[in-house]
Structure formats: C-alpha cells, structure tokens
C-alpha cells in the first residue's frame, strides 16, 4: 500500500501509451483476421464456436488494457481498484444466468410449440421488401395446408 502511494501518478508515460496502443491495434487486427476466417465455416461447427470464444477472450484482454492503462486504474491504489472491479463481478453471474435462460427458452419453445419450430425452418427468398417476405411465406404455407 505504501509502495503504491509513492508512485500513484507515475506510470502512464508516453512509452507505456504507445506500447498499449500497439497492443490494442494488434489485438483488433487478430480479431478481424479471426472474423474473416470464421465467415466460411459451417454454422453449427465446433470450430466456429471456438473462434467466437477466442474473439470474446481477445475482447476481454482489450477491455483490460483500456481500463488498466488508458483509464489508469492499474496505477490507482488497491482500495479504488477493488471498489470498481468487485461489483463488476456480478456480470459473471448475469451473463451465465441470462444466456442459459435464453437458450432454455429456445429449447422449450422448440419442444412444446411445433408451429413455432416449423415457422423457423421455412426458407424465404432473398431480396424482398421488408415484411413482404414473411407475408409471402405465410400465404404460400396456409393454402397448401388447407388443400392437403
């Protein structure tokens, strides 16, 4: 604690600023390369999921560098760092709970609402005016059901 008192507003010289700039630029370029690489992958493949995970990790690393060095939090004293960072740990629970909930809602609907599941598998033609795409598919689907 005494140590951080003496050097609280040092750190953050121009050298550090340029170092962090280069790190952020490189991380962004890596993210973009992963994004381009991901484009041709099949939708449900495990590799695509892994690349998305890697992009999220890179995003967290970028966030760390911005908060720690640009916002100078790393050079503040421990009390302040803890006051800011510990409440944000709630996000860990938020993200897990809500995404799990969304996924569970999808599975429940697909299991118990066959109409919803069928609707979400109907392919629509490309390059339609807004909303007309949905109408067309419904118009085509309904008469054929009635005839059969």
């Amino acid at each position: 604690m005494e140590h951080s008192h003496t050097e609280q507003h040092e750190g953050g010289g121009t050298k550090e600023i340029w170092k962090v700039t280069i790190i952020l630029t490189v991380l962004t370029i890596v993210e973009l390369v992963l994004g381009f690489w991901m484009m041709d992958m099949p939708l449900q493949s495990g590799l695509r999921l892994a690349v998305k995970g890697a992009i999220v990790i890179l995003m967290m690393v970028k966030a760390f560098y911005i908060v720690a060095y640009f916002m100078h939090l790393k050079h503040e004293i421990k009390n302040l760092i803890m006051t800011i960072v510990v409440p944000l740990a709630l996000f860990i629970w938020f993200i897990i709970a809500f995404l799990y909930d969304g996924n569970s809602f999808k599975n429940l609907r697909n299991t118990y609402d066959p109409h919803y599941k069928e609707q979400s598998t109907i392919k629509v033609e490309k390059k339609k005016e807004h909303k007309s795409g949905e109408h067309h598919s419904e118009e085509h689907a309904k008469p054929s059901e009635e005839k059969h």
Partner: protein
Amino acid sequence: MSSTTTVTPTKMWNGGKSPFNVEYGKLMMWYFLMSDAFTFGAFLISYGTIRFSSNGWPDPNEVFKSFPFAPEGMNAPLVFVSVMTFILIISSVTMVLAVHAGHNMDKKGVVKYMIMTIIGGAMFLGCQAWEWNHLYHEGAWWGSNPFLNHDGTASSTNFTNYFFTITGFHGFHVFSGVIINIIMLIMALTNKFEERGHYLMIEKAGLYWHFVDLVWVFVFTCFYLI
C-alpha cells in the same frame, strides 16, 4: 497481535487521509462509469439472451458489407466497422496524450491533443451516421428488418431493434463525449486550467472518453464479429 499493529500503522479508514487517494470528482466519475457499465451490460445481456432464444439470426457479414462511395453490390464485410474501431482507438490514444500533457502543465500539448480527439469523435459519429442512413435505405429500422437469417429463414425484428438501440445509445455517449471534450478545449484555451494550477478536469473527461471506447469494444464484438 502487537506485531500486526506495528506493521500496519497506516489506519486507512481512521480518517485524516483519503482512502482512495483520488480527488472527489474523479471518484464520482468512476462511480458514474460503473453505473453506466451496468446499463450497457444490461442492454448487451438482453441482446444475448434474445439471440440465444432465437432459432436463427442474421449474418453480420451479410448485413454490414458496404462501404461509403463503394459501387453498388460490393461485398466488403467488416471493413467499414474496422475503420470505425480504429478511429475510436486512435482518438482514445490522443486523449491519453492530452491527459499526459496536462500532467506536465503543457497547455499547447493539451490543446493539440484535445483537437485531435474531437476530430476523431466527430469522424466516428460521421461514420455511424452514414451506416445508419445506409441501413435505413435498405429498409432496416426499429420494427423493420429486411435481412434474412443466416440459414435463409425469415428473421424477426429483434436484430434491428437491438442494433439501433444499442449503437444509438453508444453513439449518444460519443456525441456527449465530443461535447464534453469541446468544453474542455475551450476551458484550456481560455486558461481556466492554468489559473486553477492543474488539468484534472481533462483527466475526468478522459475517463469518460475511454469508457466510450471501451463500450465500443464490446458493441463491435457482439454485433459485428460474432
């Protein structure tokens, strides 16, 4: 017991000293940014929940594939948004340099880097205005989604609703950040900080500006990349 009391003579919370060792305004800026982080977090988690509960979702590389002044039908996914991302990162860097110049009481440096930061923010806002305008003319807006899902099925309006709400909220933060930076520039030019003897206000504006960049890191990843 006696040895621990002699080792910790600081008595951090006994009064008489600043437990956070930052000035009041800066601490309050941190608290505000924390609450703002929860607001953005709530938006993005809500977006994630809806996306996880949907059977299909539009392909961002299909939606965001255009570039200003590009010929019709050009396919350039991720290019324009990477330009926007770099603009914001660079303007964040010039902001740190302005704060750094403020530490050294270098008025000229503060003015120079604040002008660069403001230009960066204005460029970002211009890019976003172009993108919104382009998407609007493709038929995308709140409540209307002309894009199809990745697998060719009809898409709901959730995608456009979340996109315009969250990038709009972020864009409004950028806009207010530019206004704050302009006020800081005027205060620096009129020697307000020289009279006070410190440039701490630049630091507070800088915290806000970096936060805007930080949020863009998340928005960029969640909407354009994955």
